[in-house]
């Protein structure tokens, strides 16, 4: 399996979620709600796995433990994100004062 290229948009097969790959330095598959995400919107959506439906929030960034992958949610949905079988966490960010 090859790595995702930054800028790639991925669509959930189980919900309305869409994410953009910000960084990817490892091989693995991005999934949402237990189903692989793909580069084209799914024609028929399956149901998210009930245990994998914590949801993704618009504008939040998600990373794996090793920080080898970073995704930005550009459309929210109900599924939970994972990479190479590992659940992704919302990236902790420091709130900065506006500088522009």
């Amino acid at each position, binding site marked *: 399996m090859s790595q995702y290229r*930054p800028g790639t948009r991925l669509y959930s097969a189980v919900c309305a979620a869409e994410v953009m790959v910000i960084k990817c330095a490892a091989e693995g598959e991005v999934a949402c709600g237990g189903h692989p995400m793909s580069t084209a919107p799914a024609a028929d959506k399956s149901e998210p796995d009930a245990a994998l439906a914590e949801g993704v929030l618009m504008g939040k960034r998600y990373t794996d433990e090793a920080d080898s992958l970073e995704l930005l949610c550009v459309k929210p949905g109900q599924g939970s994100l994972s990479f190479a079988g590992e659940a992704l966490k919302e990236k902790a960010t420091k709130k900065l004062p506006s500088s522009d």
Partner: protein
Amino acid sequence: MNIATLLQMAAEACPERGAFKCADDEFTFGELLHAATSAAMRFRSSQCQYVAYLGEASPAVPIALFGAALAEMPFVPLNYRLSDGELESLVSRISPALVVTDRRLGFQADGLVYADIKELLAADTEDPFEVPLDPDAVAVQLFTSGTTGAPKAALLRHSHLFSYIISSVEFMSAGEDEAQLTSVPPYHIAGISAILSSVYAGRRVVQLPNFDARTWLRLVSDEAITSAFVVPTMLARIVSEIDVDAGANCPTLQAIAYGGGKMPVPVIERALEVFPNVAFTNAYGLTETSSTVCLLGPEDHRQAWTSDDPQVRRRLGSVGRPLPSIEIEIRDETGRSLGPNASGEVYVRGPQVSGEYREKRVVGDDGWFATRDAGMVDEDGYVYLSGRADDVIVRGGENVSPGEVEDVLLEHPSVADVAIVGVPSKEWGEAIGAAIVLADGVAGDEEALRAHVKARLRSSKVPEYIRFVRELPYTETGKLLRRLVKADFQ
């Protein structure tokens, strides 16, 4: 990765919210996306390769910026104060170009196409437009102001600007009542980053195309402005317009960010005094770094201002600490990395750093970009700048940075503004020249000023040549044109 995604996200999250206002032109985020989509169709069918913008700030700037991004064409804002001759040489470097403007240029260029600013403001479509994905496409090309030579064409790719925004701005973090007043011109990096940051934060922007302090203060009150970005010269004019005892009378104003040039400490001190309830942020950044790389935040400002500890107090003259996504290093002339408090050249690294011109890439393979700014980092991580590395005066083998002499002279009550430059000297190689603007109604006393510098710095840093001038030459964004000051000494 494309900056148009930022607008799409904002338009999806709050389509009805006010996005941009300039005089009578107003756009919601939804309307802005529709106008940008129409513009993209127009741009794409033009057969041009660049979208230039020649005019003052207006909602047509974000429309053209995002429209160009959707059409995957570089957006090139041009300085509308330039002469036709200067513009001709820039336009010839972006041929064939579609120029969004309300004027006609006095020259012909291959493939030059015009689009009216008014036309862009009136266009609207709800047809969807697929956002291109290539993160390496050029989003914005900015011609540098050319304080030292011919303007360079700095390239910012979608990945740089996109990384900067998502790592420094929280999506939709602005409240519905927030409004930002911007008065930086569209051809400046701060003009571009102000658009992107506010869109992603969901913050309404009120544009003031031609800054003057009175209009600025009136707009703050009329438009219930909550935050603003200014360059140092603007803040100096704003605070001198306000009577200290009467106060600023800007009850809605919560935050002012400043940057784009060196802030004189007396100006920020006075600003803290006349705006006791405003949170100040100093932002240091360059065109080549997609705007801000270091921040001195509101807490730092208040702490420094109220502290008796000189180490903390002096932070008012610092540009703060690097953003979480940015690394900073100080290096000497041989490229060796220096420790705390040692002066050298500032290097930066991070996903937002482009360090690339159309003519050449100046960022190293390891990602480090030499800013050409001279400075140091203290043991607490605060960055202090002392000027441009190219401006350092070498007097008899000793390096003198103009900033340190300027700071000392600015403390003298007779000095309103000052520029220190190197003057060719047979004896020293370079001697120190001071161009000084005197405070109102004060007579210049060269010897008193020399004694003032001598008492605070070494005698080798005392200006040999002093000229009293009415004003110093600045670009409209507050950048000192040191080469012009220098020329006056020769």
